[in-house]
């Protein structure tokens, strides 16, 4: 029995969440959140992000004679590394520690871009707050909200997180974002959230 009275639909989506068409070019990395402590596991965020980025460069070859192709490759590599790292950091930090639901990151190649999707469990009491934040993100001018958040962080000595990861993706990388919330287990309740980032390359 859940402790709050809200009615959760089995599946709720926000923003640009699409069920991607089956792809033949993708990577999925899975993590078991309870297997080792977060602090120990943290280094794998960077390793995974950099691996995904490096792996991707095969599909966006740079030509030694064409500096613009090399620059494009470097930009894509850097963007993938940054976005994947932020998504993994968020998933690791906000994962429901009472659940054994795995975290996974999927990177899928599309004709005109890339789709990242990261899934993790999220504690049921924090769903409302997160959904409210998502709605704020979708309604805002990312450029304004970004600066507002920076000013807010600077004024708050006790701020425990930057709240900036998603904003930088929207503001600096012009990413399209979407979310799916799903009840994956009823008793005890486990809610999974999938964060999707679409990047045009």
């Amino acid at each position, binding site marked *: 029995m859940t402790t709050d009275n809200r009615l959760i639909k089995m599946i709720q989506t926000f923003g640009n969440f699409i069920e991607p068409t089956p792809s033949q070019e993708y990577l999925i990395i899975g993590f078991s959140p309870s297997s080792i402590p977060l602090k120990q596991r943290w280094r794998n965020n960077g390793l995974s992000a950099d691996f995904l980025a490096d792996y991707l460069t095969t599909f966006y070859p740079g030509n030694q004679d064409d500096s613009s192709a090399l620059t494009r490759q470097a930009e894509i590599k850097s*963007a993938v590394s940054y976005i994947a790292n932020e998504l993994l*950091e968020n998933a690791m930090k906000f994962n429901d520690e009472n659940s054994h639901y795995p975290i996974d990151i999927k990177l899928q190649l599309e004709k005109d871009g890339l789709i990242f999707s990261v899934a993790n469990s999220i504690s049921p009491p924090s769903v409302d707050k997160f959904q409210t934040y998502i709605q704020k993100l979708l309604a805002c001018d990312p450029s304004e909200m970004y600066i507002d958040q920076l000013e807010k962080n600077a004024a708050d000595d006790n701020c425990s997180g*930057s709240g*900036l990861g998603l904003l930088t993706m929207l503001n600096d990388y012009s990413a399209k974002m979407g979310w799916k919330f799903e009840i994956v287990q009823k008793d005890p309740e486990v809610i999974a959230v999938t964060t999707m980032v679409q990047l045009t390359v």
Partner: protein
Amino acid sequence: MEIKTEQYRICYDRETATVSFSGSLRLSGPEEYQPIAQLLADVADGETRKITLNLQQLEFLNSSGISMLSKFIIEVRKKVGVQISVQGSQSIAWQAKSLKNLQRLMPALILELV
């Protein structure tokens, strides 16, 4: 003043009033960034005219790091007469995308991307 690990190095050159960052910074949040924030705060306390942040060798910075740097800029903004200059690299993609936001926080900040 210097902070050095296998992944990154931050050091302060008093003569040129420059704090140089190199490597890759992916710390988990404000608590882990505190020693670096403290180094920057100590530099700002000691400098009365100009501080330069040299990020040209900083290959990677996560959003918690961007937040920390921004917080530092906002603190210096309050000090009358202290100028900040940020040196970055055009060839490091995150810098080309994200450093201009520092200028939005402090319009008088000098940003050079070489």
